């Protein structure tokens, strides 16, 4: 147990894996960085433990330490017991034997975890033969095919001969799982296995992981930053902050009754698909501490709303809550929180929406209208004599409108063409086909001068706040750049820059600093300030919060909502995170393979989706609530997003459509032959022949 381990450290253990007082320090020229500071946890046979934390909380380092995969410069102290035997001080050879057979690991990036020059089948067979030298090559190969079948790779005999680059991200991750379970390990450590994947693929992988766990009876340690992912899958949970476990308990205990203010804040700050959109999010202010020079006391104290003087001097140990052996929290005021004396719901103040008097008046008009926009890229082959062998239909007839002062959320998986769509819009050039009208003007008919003038009205905020700010320019020059284009004199420019910095909640005196001196959330505010400096009417937001940690996200989303109401802005909000979209958007358009398959008011789309794809997408999103997660059944889509070069006759979703399979032959024939046009069903604009029968696929 977590707490008993600290009091009686040298008793033999009955746990499968037990980590005792683990410390990991990386010596660095600027001073040692202690990434893990006294972590205790255990995993029992067949248990599913989730370790949750933001980037830099030490969750990956502690699991790499278990595998013995840390760089040799790292200093490790404490003890790691696997099946009662210590792993510390073992030779690499002994550990290698244990890896795979005893413990196996699944990494975040399956492309770099697989060797590019060997086929998938060979790599699985290699893992098998390493641990069983008697196994013949033929037997190993046939076992490899069997394993690929288990993890749900279609046509495994042929696929075993493929190289990693021929697999999609989701399939690679399945292959990684196949390698991980090849030798029936007793423990699988999955380090952010789904972070790089889309939600529908994430749902598939999590299901495969559960299946692998059931098949092998292995215990699983799932490391993730996404509370939603663990809610439905894990039995127990450990929350890490600044190199320590700050709260642990069963999933129900932690989600129902979190007792560490950090966990409470994290849960409150997440946009939740089930509840989003009704109130402002509750931001968790501040940033995680630097691990190189940690101040004494609780590392969360500077961000904690319930901080008392004692917090700044003593670091609280993990203390048991209500005598429940599995539930513990590292907070001095844990008693008050557990007993309800300190209310969880009012611990963090909910920000007020913008007062009605401050709201900008917006005329009811369309500020942007895109119709039948197309963007096809020719696919060519040959290095000297290029010839076209196909077309990539990145954007294939997209139409939408944005009303003044409103937000349109454009959602879809990666590769569906949403980024290409906004790039086409932002070019302000004549599109290949279709029409883009901004502020009532068709951009195709603009002269160069008019186009430049129009750029004042439409600005963009990018996904990665580090990449979108020129590292060589101080903030004042970055934010003021759009003004230089329009010939604003330097003095006015500086004044305007100071104004917008104030508006986005940054101190104008920081204007002479460089971007890398700011934290991720602050940088994104700089990006927003730059977009606002020309007083635009429309702001295109390209995944503006997906590169930020959960606790930072909420602040940026709130800011965007406040600014919209104060300035009467219109947003085109592109995202893959549906919960964030529900929080901010008034209307939603769902994209699939270059088309908009469903669009309509947010409430309609989220509560009553009419297109089978929308329904599958929504059901794939994990909700950070274990009760909801357990009660609902997922609609798992088969396979991956088809390549946009493929020519699919009729409806291009039918290859993965769960509704298609439920329909009778005549109806299927219609899907195969005729391309569905957008039509209105129950208040949404849907491109599906059988939207009326959508309830067929509702799981019982």
């Amino acid at each position: 147990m977590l707490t008993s381990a600290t009091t009686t450290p040298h008793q033999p253990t009955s746990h499968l894996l037990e980590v005792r007082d683990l410390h990991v320090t990386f010596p660095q020229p600027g001073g040692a960085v202690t990434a893990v500071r006294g972590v205790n946890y255990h995993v029992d046979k067949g248990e599913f433990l989730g370790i949750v934390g933001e980037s830099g909380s030490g969750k990956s380092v502690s699991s790499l330490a278990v595998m013995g995969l840390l760089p040799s410069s790292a200093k490790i102290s404490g003890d790691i017991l696997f099946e009662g035997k210590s792993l510390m001080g073992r030779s690499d050879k002994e550990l290698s034997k244990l890896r795979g057979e005893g413990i196996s690991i699944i990494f975040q990036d399956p492309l770099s975890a697989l060797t590019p020059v060997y086929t998938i089948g060979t790599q699985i067979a290699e893992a098998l033969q390493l641990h069983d030298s008697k196994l013949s090559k033929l037997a190993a190969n046939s076992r490899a095919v069997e394993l690929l079948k288990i993890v749900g790779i279609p046509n495994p005999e042929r696929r075993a001969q493929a190289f990693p680059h021929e697999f999609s991200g989701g399939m690679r991750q399945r292959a990684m799982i196949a390698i991980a379970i090849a030798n029936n390990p007793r423990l699988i450590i999955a380090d952010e296995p789904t972070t790089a994947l889309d939600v529908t693929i994430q749902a598939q992988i999590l299901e495969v992981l559960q299946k692998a766990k059931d098949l092998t009876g292995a215990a699983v340690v799932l490391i993730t930053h996404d509370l939603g992912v663990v809610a439905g899958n894990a039995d127990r949970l450990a929350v890490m902050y600044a190199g320590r476990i700050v709260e642990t308990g069963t999933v129900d205990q932690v989600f129902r009754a979190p007792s560490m203010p950090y966990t409470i804040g994290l849960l409150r700050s997440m946009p939740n698909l089930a509840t989003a959109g009704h109130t402002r999010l509750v931001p968790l202010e501040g940033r995680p501490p630097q691990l190189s020079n940690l101040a004494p006391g609780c590392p969360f104290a500077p961000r904690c709303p319930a901080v008392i003087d004692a917090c700044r001097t003593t670091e609280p140990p993990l203390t048991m809550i209500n005598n429940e052996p599995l539930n513990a929290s590292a907070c001095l005021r844990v008693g008050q929180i557990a007993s309800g004396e300190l209310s969880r719901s009012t611990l963090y103040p909910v920000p007020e929406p913008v007062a009605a008097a401050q709201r900008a008046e917006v005329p009811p008009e369309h500020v942007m209208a895109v119709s039948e926009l197309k963007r096809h890229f020719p696919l060519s082959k040959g290095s000297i004599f290029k010839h076209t062998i196909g077309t990539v239909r990145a954007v294939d007839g997209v139409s939408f409108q944005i009303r003044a002062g409103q937000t349109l959320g454009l959602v879809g998986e990666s590769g569906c063409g949403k980024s290409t769509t906004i790039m086409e819009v932002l070019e302000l050039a004549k599109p290949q086909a279709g029409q883009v009208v901004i502020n009532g003007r068709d951009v195709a008919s603009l002269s160069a001068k008019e186009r430049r003038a129009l750029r004042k009205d439409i600005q963009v905020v990018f996904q990665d706040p580090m990449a979108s700010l020129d590292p060589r320019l101080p903030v004042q020059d970055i934010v003021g750049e759009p003004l230089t284009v329009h010939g604003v004199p330097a003095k006015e420019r500086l004044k305007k820059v100071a104004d917008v910095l104030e508006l986005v909640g940054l101190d104008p005196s920081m204007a002479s600093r460089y971007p890398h001196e700011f934290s991720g959330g602050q940088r994104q505010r700089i990006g927003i300030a730059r977009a606002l400096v020309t007083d635009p009417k429309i702001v295109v937001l390209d995944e503006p919060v997906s590169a930020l940690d959960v606790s930072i996200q909420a602040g940026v989303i709130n800011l965007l909502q406040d600014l919209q109401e104060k300035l009467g802005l219109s947003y085109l909000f592109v995202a893959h995170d549906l919960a964030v979209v529900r929080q901010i958007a008034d209307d939603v358009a769902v994209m699939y393979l270059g088309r908009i398959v469903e669009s309509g008011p947010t409430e309609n789309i989220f509560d009553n989706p009419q297109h089978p794809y929308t329904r599958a997408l929504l059901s794939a999103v994990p909700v950070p609530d274990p009760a909801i997660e357990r009660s609902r059944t997922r609609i798992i889509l088969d396979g991956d997003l088809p390549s946009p070069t493929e020519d699919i006759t009729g409806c291009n979703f039918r290859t993965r459509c769960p509704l298609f399979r439920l329909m009778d032959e005549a109806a299927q024939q219609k899907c195969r032959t005729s391309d569905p046009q957008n039509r209105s069903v129950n208040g949404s604009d849907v491109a599906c022949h059988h939207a009326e029968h959508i309830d067929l696929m509702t799981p019982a």
Partner: protein
Amino acid sequence: MSMLEEVSIPDVTAANPDIIRSKKPVSRFKLVLSRLRSTPRFWVGIVGLGAIILWSIFGLIPNAWNYTDLDVYNMGSSPSALHWFGTSDIGEDIYAQTIVGLRKSLIIGLLVGPLAAIIAGIIGAVAGYLGGWWDRVLVWIIDLLLVLPSLFLFILIGSAFKGLSWVALIFLLAGFGWMIMARVIRAQTKSLRERDFIKAARFMGVDTWTIIRRHVLPNVSSLLIIDATLGIGGAILSETTLSFFGFGIQAPDVSLGTLLSAGQTAAATRPWLFIFPAAILVFTVLSASLVGDALRDAVDPTSGVNRD
């Protein structure tokens, strides 16, 4: 060439401790200067380089000998109170010769290095940023110049230039010294072009030349500055080679190159003929690279000492 294509742009997220605290917004130039002032290496380099330049200008005044004078009574003598650096076989004063040679080499180095870097920067950035036909033509020219044996060309063109002064040599050296760097800059620019801040500038309506000047060149500037400083040493070395073969600096003129090549056969027996010019050369190149190093750190807030 594959090695050259893969220079990555530092993408740094680490926090920076040195923050200039002032209420008033400071211009970029002032920021660079204030960073520069706080780097000790900059002072060592600039003092060294300044001393070398001052010495090359005023060093002849206290000396009794001119560089063309021949002291027939002291041929091949070691350093003494009369001849500070000794004399050569025919009685030339090495001190005077070194100073005159240093002047020439400094002028050539200080002009060729930056000139080649400027050509490399402009051509590389234009080829990388514009792409398409511009890129194809420029890369073709770069490759053509790279495959041609430059020494052979130097000799060919050099004989045509023989009548002209050593100034022509500067352009010749710069004209053949920019290609490899231009390829590096082009590769860097190609990856920069896909970065969001360049896209952001495009969508703001910033025109192409402003983007190259304001966003591309500063982001490759650390490479260019290193190239310019290394180019100083490189140019001096190229000049030496050419002079050694008789195609560089011509007879009445002296440079460190001609001195070194004249003295290198005597390095073991009469070391003063070789050691003094060589030591001056090393000192000059070292000072120049210290300055370049400090400059890079000042211009690029994410490199070197500023990183942690």
